[in-house]
């Protein structure tokens, strides 16, 4: 068992290596001199040269990469040009809002979409199925920020039930924390529900077409048991897989949602950093999110062992 976990962890190393290289190259691809861009238009030549020096831009690229990796390994992501604090500190500050939003969204989405998808598969072709598929397509098509504004318009401005924007720390009480997160989570979860319900439906549908379902019915088992213990149980792997892949989608959604709802999280940080050309922060955030993606998918990978006994270690 331990060796299996070790093997799966080792398998992520090449991916992480590629990520590191890509992120590093991403910011070295800027046309023109990054130091000049940093210094701004009003800088003098000597100021630019100084910045080049401090950034180590004189060294050949592989050496720069090496230095960067060394810092990375020590947990040093550099200092933000714009905020003038360590990037790691910045990330730590903005972590809670983003994590709250993401977790709430995923939990809600999964709890809602899996049963809906399973039901749609069971009553394949019926009214509920068609309605769910229709909703799913809509969910994919209406952009997150448009939906956000619609919800804000209706719920906050016209009905006044929930605050329009902002975020309350958990430390300040669960009530306010939740109140400020309901709309953003709801907005973000729509696309997730659309995706997961669709995949659940497809996976359960496929399972329902398998021979062992016929066997289960031939044993005289009630439909509910056939659906849950036989069909959905076998659909678990594709469902969990898509949740893992959906993390990438989640990040995109988080960026936009935080922007619209003025939540001071990592998503907003990214946008602000890009607008300010704050390279270390951009790099740091991208690295963080990529690591998160790899980490979540590793967990998904490991979970397969529990979900499907054919996957052995």
């Amino acid at each position, binding site marked *: 068992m331990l060796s299996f976990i070790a*093997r799966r962890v*080792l398998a992520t190393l090449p991916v992480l290596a590629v990520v590191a290289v890509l992120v590093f190259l991403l910011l070295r691809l800027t046309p023109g001199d990054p130091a000049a861009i940093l210094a701004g238009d009003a800088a003098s030549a000597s100021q630019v040269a100084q910045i080049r020096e401090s950034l180590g831009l004189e060294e050949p690229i592989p050496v720069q990469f090496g230095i960067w990796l060394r810092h990375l390994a020590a947990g040093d992501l550099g200092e933000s040009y714009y905020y003038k604090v360590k990037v790691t500190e910045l990330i730590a500050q903005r972590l809670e809002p983003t994590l709250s939003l993401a977790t709430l969204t995923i939990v809600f989405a999964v709890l809602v979409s899996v049963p809906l998808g399973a039901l749609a598969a069971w009553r394949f072709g019926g009214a509920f199925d068609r309605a769910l598929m229709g909703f799913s397509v809509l969910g994919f098509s209406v952009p997150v920020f448009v939906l956000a504004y619609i919800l804000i318009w209706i719920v906050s401005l016209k009905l006044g039930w929930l605050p329009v924007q902002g975020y309350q720390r958990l430390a300040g009480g669960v009530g306010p924390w939740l109140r400020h997160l309901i709309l953003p989570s709801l907005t973000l979860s729509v696309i997730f529900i659309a995706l997961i319900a669709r995949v659940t439906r497809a996976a359960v549908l496929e399972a329902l077409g*398998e*021979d*062992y379902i*016929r*066997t*289960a*019915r*031939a*044993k*005289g*088992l*009630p439909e509910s*048991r056939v659906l849950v*213990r*036989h069909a959905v*149980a*076998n659909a*678990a792997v594709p469902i969990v897989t898509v949740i893992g892949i959906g993390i990438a989608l989640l990040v995109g959604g988080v960026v936009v949602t935080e922007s619209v709802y003025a939540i001071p999280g990592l998503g907003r940080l990214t946008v602000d950093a890009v607008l300010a050309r704050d390279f270390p922060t951009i790099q740091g955030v991208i690295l963080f999110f990529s690591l998160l993606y790899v980490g979540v998918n590793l967990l998904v990978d490991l979970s397969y062992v529990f*979900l*499907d*006994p*054919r996957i052995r270690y």
Partner: protein
Amino acid sequence: MSVLEVRGLTIDLPSGGDRRHAAADVGFTVDRGEIVCLVGESGSGKSVIAQSVMGLLPRGLPVTAGEIRLEGEDLLRASPRRLRELRATRMSMVFQEPMTALNPVMRCGEQLDEVLREHTALAPAARRRRILDIVREVRLPDPERMVAAYPHQLSGGQRQRIMIAMALVLEPALLIADEPTTALDVTTQAQILRLIQDLQARHGTGVLFITHDFGVVAEIAHRVAVLCLGELVELGPRDDVLRRPQHQYTRMLIGAVPTLKPHARPADAGAPVVLATRGLSKTYRDRGWLSRHREVHAAADVTLEVRKGQTLGIVGESGSGKSTVARCIVRLIDPSAGEIRLGREDIASMPQSRLRALRRRVQIVFQDPYRSLNPRRSVLEAIIEGPRNYGVPRARAIETARRLMGLVRMDPGSLARYPHQFSGGQRQRICIARALAMEPELLVADEAVSALDVSVQAQVLALLEEIRERLQLAMLFITHDLRVAAQVCDHVAVMSQGRVVEYGPAAQVFGSPRHEYTRALFDAAPGRDFAFGAA
């Protein structure tokens, strides 16, 4: 009172099909303690009838007339709840594909337990005892381990025994077996058939056994019902139906079953050797960089030869390596060791570039007629592809294609059609024509008739025979079916676990087999005591 009584059963097919009814006015009975075989080719409606008894028909196939009485109770008027109550308690079913019939993520013991939990009020300890008892009764070794195992850890034969255990644990009056042994090896099949017979005799169960294999019918049936395109054409005791068939269709079917006695055709020992292998081996190494290294000897030290105008058969069960040998010979996979002499050249280790010139001399026909032709290309394109690769001008290739279609007894005018417009047997003929277009010296038939109905099989075998005679081809015939081997082969090689265990003229191997595996193989052939086939 019969256990099962079917009267005037009519089941409709959705409109647009090739006929109106899946089953039309079908009637038969199954009594306590008797095995009734329902025989027919594919599409005859036998599976549909079986499913209708259990109430498992899909929605598109409604029962429009008739009655089905299980111990006197009309199942067609029963409520869904009542049907669920009857399933596994009074009637149960075993299906064809043991590999997919069990839930892969649930332990076998739990799948057995489900039946007991649903239909009885037994306490957990009592249920466990019952489960272990039935697992022992279906002759599975080490019941404790079987019960705790997952389906993928069991072989096909073992899974089928678990299925039978699930079906019989509550001692139903009726067992419906839908081709339960078709997907199994010959030796496993023999064991399962014997098991069903024993259990049935012990518990007095009535068995409705669906099959297409007359050998099985000869082996276990008490009474036989023959289905043709949804109609019951013959019904009677086994010996009557098999020895004195009344209906023309039955007579045709029984006549098409090959006998186990090898043909008496003399083989010319002086004919030139077209292909010979020596020490041919194929080993697979599991070379994951972190996992253990495993070696699988798919084929080991295979030595055989095929002569011009003669057929060599390679007979074996699944996993015996016969397909591996065929693919090595056609160089679809690369052998690990050994020689393959085609004429004077050794093609075993030849690089792909030099191989091209020699490819035309060896051609292959595959098992699955539904996947052997590119669905997006016309049949004409399929047949002329080979000659065109070697520079034959298009007009001449088309001429050849027409001629070959006639040779395989198909209408040359249908060359413009697409594969899906032909039946399985027809597609196989097209594949044969495609192979012959290359004018090969050796034709390899890799289970080429295994996926065909017995009547179609007889036709294709006759065609292959005719072609072999006419063109004086050498043929390498791979099969698991002993009857087919007896009919077409001059020489036979028997393979088991990658090795050739017996090799010689057909008459000798079939008549007086020397190796114990060969003998076991013949013992297991169902209906071997029954003399089928035109003598």
